[in-house]
């Protein structure tokens, strides 16, 4: 088992004919993901990496049975792409696009929920279930299938953790990047709940960073989980009031500091790594205790 994406994923790529869309479609196809369709308005009849392109999401869904979409559409047009996917019955919408205005993200969040769909991201690296489906931009070659679920607000820092686990011979069930913006479609808490229910996942790595309260909210649930959680929080040295690259990574009004988050995670029983290098070590220990 795994969460969110698997061999049953029938993936639709929105913005497939753009530079990013073409490149990553080829990567996903090469990984073995079932990419069944692409959408670019006006692009019908084309093919990208052997994948047929349609004008609208509705047509693509009707013709191919796509159930998941990934969005590489530039920020000014990304909200519309997400609304189109949700309105067409796509159940899982993964938004890679960065720099989407926060007020648009509020609307995207609301509309997708109302349609009964789920959004991952925006501004995220996507998700991978090793050996089954790579939906996003996480390099495929760093993975190995196994018992650790990973959920993260970051991109390359996630790759770092995945690579370190794989180097130690520890595989992953599913790796989920939830995105670094203040408003994201799916929270740490929701992904933790999915990992808790997933029979394959035996331990979870949670990679957070400064800003907001998503880690504290997650900590409230970690105490109830039957599976061990290893945490890491980036930004212990971040100055207050500055946005550290990610729109959501900011200590404001003295809240959202790394110390607060580490304290909350530790109080909930998670073991928290002091450096990225320590994550794999702690995960190994957590697995051996089970």
């Amino acid at each position: 088992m795994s969460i969110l994406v698997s061999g049953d994923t029938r993936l639709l790529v929105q913005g497939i004919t753009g530079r990013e869309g073409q490149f990553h479609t080829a990567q996903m196809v090469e990984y073995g993901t079932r990419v069944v369709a692409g959408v670019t308005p006006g692009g019908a009849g084309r093919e990208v990496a052997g994948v047929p392109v349609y004008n609208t999401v509705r047509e693509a869904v009707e013709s191919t049975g796509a159930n998941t979409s990934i969005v590489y559409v530039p920020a000014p047009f990304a909200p519309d792409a997400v609304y189109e996917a949700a309105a067409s019955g796509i159940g899982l919408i993964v938004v890679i696009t960065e720099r989407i205005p926060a007020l648009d993200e509020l609307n995207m969040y609301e509309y997708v929920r109302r349609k009964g769909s789920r959004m991952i991201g925006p501004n995220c690296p996507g998700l991978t279930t090793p050996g089954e489906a790579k939906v996003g931009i996480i390099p495929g070659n760093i993975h190995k299938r196994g018992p650790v679920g990973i959920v993260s607000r970051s991109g390359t820092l996630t790759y770092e953790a995945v690579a370190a686990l794989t180097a130690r011979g520890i595989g992953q069930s599913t790796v989920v990047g939830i995105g670094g913006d203040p408003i994201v479609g799916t929270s740490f808490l929701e992904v933790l709940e999915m990992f808790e229910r997933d029979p394959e996942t035996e331990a979870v790595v949670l990679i957070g960073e400064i800003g907001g309260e998503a880690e504290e909210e997650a900590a409230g649930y970690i105490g109830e989980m039957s599976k061990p959680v290893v945490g890491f929080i980036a930004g212990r040295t971040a100055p207050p009031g500055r946005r550290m690259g990610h729109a959501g990574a900011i200590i404001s009004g003295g809240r959202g500091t790394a110390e607060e988050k580490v304290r909350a995670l530790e109080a909930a029983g998670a073991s928290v790594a002091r450096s990225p290098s320590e994550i794999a070590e702690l995960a190994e220990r957590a697995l051996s205790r089970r």
Partner: protein
Amino acid sequence: MNLHEYQTREILRRHGIPVPPDQVASTPEEAESAAAAIGGEVVIKAQVHAGGRGKAGGVKLANSPVGAREAAEQILGMQIKGLPVNKVLVAPAADITNEMYLGFILDRANKTVTLMASAAGGVDIEEVAERTPEKIVRAQADPVIGFQPYQARDVAYELGLSGRHVRQFADIAMRLYDVFLENDASLLEINPLAIVASGDLQALDAKMVVDDNSLFRHPELAAMEDHTQLAPSEVEAARAGITFIKLDGDIGCMVNGAGLAMATMDTVKLYGGEPANFLDIGGGASAEQVTAALNIILADPKVRAVLINIFGGITRCDVVARGILEGLSAVERRVPMVVRLVGTNEEEGRRILEGAQLPTASSLSEAAERVVRIARGEETPAPTPGA
């Protein structure tokens, strides 16, 4: 992006929010004539993107145009928390009977826009939130129908207002909500929202933070950005597509990805070093970007060593390695460097760097430990190529 008080006041005024008339001055003489035009007692306020300007001496009262000139002379050219004051706002001194706080914020936790108000205005709202959170009244906008007048009236009554003040408060709150949405704000506040001698509500100070990601649809706001309020290195970095934040340490950091960049700084600190900066070079890490990033890092004379940490995912390490060498040959200043390059094509990348005798490390911990030792003078690194 932050707007100055004078810019925010103008926007609020255009939307029908009662803001007293004011003028902006860049010289003491302009302040003098502004005070003469306004008449009576005036307040001269530093226009700077730093909080606590009152405590820093950036706000002064003057009884005459000459007094206004003298006050402006003292304020203009001041540095408040390291930021230069190039403009002052001249406005009538208000006769205040009551000060409140009214603002809207992007509410991350509740995923909506939320009104915040307090009967205790004129002070730092974050302090109020910290010390007496019960004094803050909140009301969330519904995601479908938006913020409604009844909510604004509810808040007004909770603040203890009555009669026409309730009507005025609700009117200002609704207009403020519109300004928030129209300008893609992430924070918009009136502090203080005051009851003045005439008995009316007036916005005496205002602050707006605009969502940087929305600037593509607000060219008029983007044009209002005051670059003098940013470190020159940060402006230069933004132009090169790099995110750079200057810190106080002596170990320069160049990293791809924001989370990894923070984690790299943290690891440097963990090994006893002090990071000189946050720098996210972005996805590409082309030779041009590496050059720009090195130039920005090395422009800080405090930097004694540099740690380059790249996790090549989609980005190939050999491309990055060549970018680093090209970048090094284009910059003049030499400091020791430690490079950690892992991921796609890492062996090839490492060979390229080792051929150039650039010290490499395989793990982040090893790299951080080594760069800290080098910065402390405990290890003598190989000479940097190109020197």
